[in-house]
């Protein structure tokens, strides 16, 4: 076919300048690539690599502070960098469309989904109301939403994350654009939903011959969907080539490092359990939320039901599950950040689920948590040193001693002890997570809970923090409860794994056993959905 040879998108020598005073002059530096019809090209890179900036430049949606300074972006031969605002508006959704990372916030909460798609049609076409409605129902059916008529009249908050992303896809593709830009469209979704959305995008673009520019940080997704891959770093194109070649024979050291940072889905061998001392045990732990209402029947949500777990000294227990499975609820009940409604929690020999807050206080020290988002879990107004010593000082340690302990811990987490008087914004995400770990360790806990503690980090940083956590566990013979949605991470760090679904533990056993021979249907579906499960990342063929 002749159209196969003319690319739908040609980015030539594109540079986008950052405002003066940034850490580099250009957000994007002399980047060139093409997307052909019917082809999925992945832009891969860690945060700050400039991949989203490229997407927004193509759509003409760049923040005012960023300015394209050189190069061309040809959409079917037309330079969109030279197009005026009106022409850009005409092109959006008719020839190029974009879907975003957060389906939860990308739709207008006060308009029905149908009206939001209808806007696209009434802006760009002359169809009458009945024709528009028919076309919308058609596209809703194509993105496989159940009961299109009901969905048409629904507001976004009445739909699940996956359904909302389907609405976004429907909106983007309703006018059959030649280019679809997908900016991390599955990052905020659960793995099983992610697998369905990836499949849907591949199907739709295949049938219409749409060119897709797919932005992601996840090599699993790349392996799943891309035909060609472009690796970005600090705004520069490091390497580009067919997916198979980039994944198995990368030429550049950076690409090799990035790919080998992806945790393997095959668990490491941990040996047999020798430890006898149980640090934490839960018995039929449950948490029920009920919304009381004066006139209606109370609404009851069982967030956790009959959860039995135990963790011994020096072991890591992983709780794996999708959002809403109850894994964080269990962690919070164990730390008594929320009060469990049923069952018991034994910390050593002390039962802490039911004791009064004043009697609980002395035991608080024994369980410490590291949270998901290192950007929001440190108080921005106080120095990291003060954050670390605050806890021990509450428990009676003198400031000098607490500071001494903080300095030692900074070394433990491989940070400069002299940085204690700095503020959180002076550290990167990975460094902040190390500080959060130091803060938790400063209390000398018996149990460390890591609630999605590496989920917000780039793979290379994630690898380092995971290594650090494992090393600390060994050195201090610490019990760790590791909450994660990421099977690869769980495979690398857990001795035991509990798989949760709808508030219940559906499978529980040694990590090696659960990963190599999952028994429960839900666990199996979880593994089947893991992107790139057939790839062994980082085992490169000789170049």
């Amino acid at each position, binding site marked *: 076919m002749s159209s196969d040879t003319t690319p739908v998108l040609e980015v030539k020598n594109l540079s986008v300048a950052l405002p003066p005073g940034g850490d580099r002059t250009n957000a994007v530096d002399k980047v060139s690539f093409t997307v052909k019809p019917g082809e999925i090209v992945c832009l891969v890179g860690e945060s700050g690599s400039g991949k989203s900036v490229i997407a927004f430049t193509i759509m003409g949606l760049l923040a005012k502070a960023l300015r394209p300074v050189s190069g061309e972006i040809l959409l079917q031969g037309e330079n969109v960098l030279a197009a005026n605002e009106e022409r850009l*508006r005409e092109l959006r959704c008719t020839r190029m469309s974009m879907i975003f990372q957060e389906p939860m916030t*990308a739709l207008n909460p*006060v308009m029905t989904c149908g009206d939001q798609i209808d806007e*696209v049609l009434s802006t760009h076409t002359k169809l009458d109301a009945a024709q528009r409605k028919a076309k919308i129902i058609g596209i809703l059916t194509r993105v496989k939403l159940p009961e299109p008529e009901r969905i048409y009249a629904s507001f976004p908050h009445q739909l699940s994350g996956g359904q909302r992303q389907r609405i976004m896809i429907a909106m983007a593709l309703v006018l059959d654009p030649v280019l679809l830009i997908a900016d991390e469209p599955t990052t905020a979704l659960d793995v099983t939903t992610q697998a369905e959305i990836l499949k849907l995008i591949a199907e739709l673009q295949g049938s219409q011959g749409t060119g897709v520019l797919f932005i992601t940080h996840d090599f699993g997704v790349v392996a799943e969907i891309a035909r060609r891959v472009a690796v970005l770093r600090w705004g520069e194109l490091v390497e580009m080539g067919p997916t198979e070649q980039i994944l198995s024979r990368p030429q550049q050291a950076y690409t090799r490092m990035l790919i080998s940072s992806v945790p393997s889905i095959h668990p490491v061998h941990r040996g047999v359990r020798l430890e006898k001392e149980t640090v934490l045990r839960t018995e039929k732990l449950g948490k029920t939320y009920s919304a009381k209402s004066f006139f209606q029947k109370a609404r009851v949500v069982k967030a956790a039901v009959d959860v039995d777990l135990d963790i011994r000294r020096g072991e890591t227990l992983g709780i794996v599950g999708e959002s809403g499975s109850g894994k964080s609820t269990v962690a919070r009940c164990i730390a008594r950040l929320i009060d469990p409604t049923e069952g018991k929690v034994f910390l050593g020999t002390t039962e802490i689920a039911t004791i009064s807050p004043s009697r609980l206080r002395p035991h608080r020290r024994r369980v410490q948590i590291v949270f998901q988002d290192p950007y929001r879990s440190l108080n921005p107004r106080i120095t990291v040193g003060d954050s670390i010593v605050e806890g021990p000082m509450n428990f009676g340690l003198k400031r000098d001693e607490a500071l001494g302990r903080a300095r030692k811990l900074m070394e433990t987490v491989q940070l400069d002890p002299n940085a204690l008087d700095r503020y959180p914004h002076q550290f990167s995400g990975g460094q902040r997570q190390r500080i959060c770990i130091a803060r938790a360790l400063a209390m000398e806990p018996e149990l460390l809970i890591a609630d999605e503690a590496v989920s917000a980090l780039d793979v290379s940083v994630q690898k380092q923090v995971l290594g650090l956590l494992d090393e600390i566990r060994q050195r201090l013979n610490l019990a760790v409860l590791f909450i994660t949605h990421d099977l690869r991470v769980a495979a690398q760090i857990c001795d035991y794994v509990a798989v949760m679904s709808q508030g219940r533990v559906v499978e529980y056993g040694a990590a090696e056993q659960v990963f190599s021979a999952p028994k429960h249907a839900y666990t199996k579906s979880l593994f089947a959905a893991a992107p790139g499960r057939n790839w062994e990342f980082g085992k490169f063929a000789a170049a």
Partner: protein
Amino acid sequence: MIDFIARRLVAIIPVLAVVAIFVFLMLRLTPGDPAAVIAGDNATSDQIDLIRAKLGLDLPIWQQFIIWIGDILRGNLGESFFFKKTVVELIAQRLQPTLALSICTLIIAVATAVPLGVLAAYRHGSLLDRVVMGFSVMGFSLPTFVIGYCLIYVFAIDLDWLPVQGYTRIEVDFWGFISHIILPSITLGIIYVALIARITRASVLEVLNEDYIRTARAKGLSNRVVLMRHALRNAAVPILTVIGIGVALLIGGAVVTETVYGLPGLGRLTVEAVLSRDFPTIQAVILMFSVVYVVINLLIDISYTLFDPRIRY
């Protein structure tokens, strides 16, 4: 929803009870004797006692309270000590100017403030934004009576376009009514323009950073549609709240404005009643204002559901 409205209406009763007790006691405990005011400067103490007995003011306070509450429950707000009319008649007579002033003020305020706020948010950091925000600081800072006399000087005395003071009832002469109500409404409205413009700017500015605004732009919609259809409706709840508080506060502002422009409204009635220790009138007016506050707040809460489908009662 029906539950919600019913519950809120029932909740008015304790509010009124508390207001009633409080107002009644406050008036009896403040110095000043209505009988002495009515009797005039040259009355003897016997004459004053006689008037006091006639008004029932010689009874113990608790008896007076029970009689008053009993009357109210039977729908009788009593008779003014001073104006020699029933309180209901008095209020009916004075209602129109205040109502007209409040409604005109509200229309002027919302019609100018919301577009100004949206524009300032859209062009934030620009000259227009700074002018609007500067104006709003000024609007807050200038007392109503200063603005009132300045406007009278310019438009009524200097340019002679509008009457200085007074009121024409709407049913008598519509254009006369408009010419009398326009300056007072602008005077009273300026502070609300300032308030509503600021809050509109702030909430629209916040909404403009939301992901769905980016989505709307990625759809190829024009800026006007993005602003009016997507941004403003999402910014509506805080704006409505401020408008609601504004309406409640209007009544207070109306006292000064009605005095400056000589409008015979409820604001002036309240001032006159207080000065003459006209207990039944003061009590009735304050009770009525409390009902108005509660009902306005209820209407605001209900109006949220029109703008945001996620809010359900």
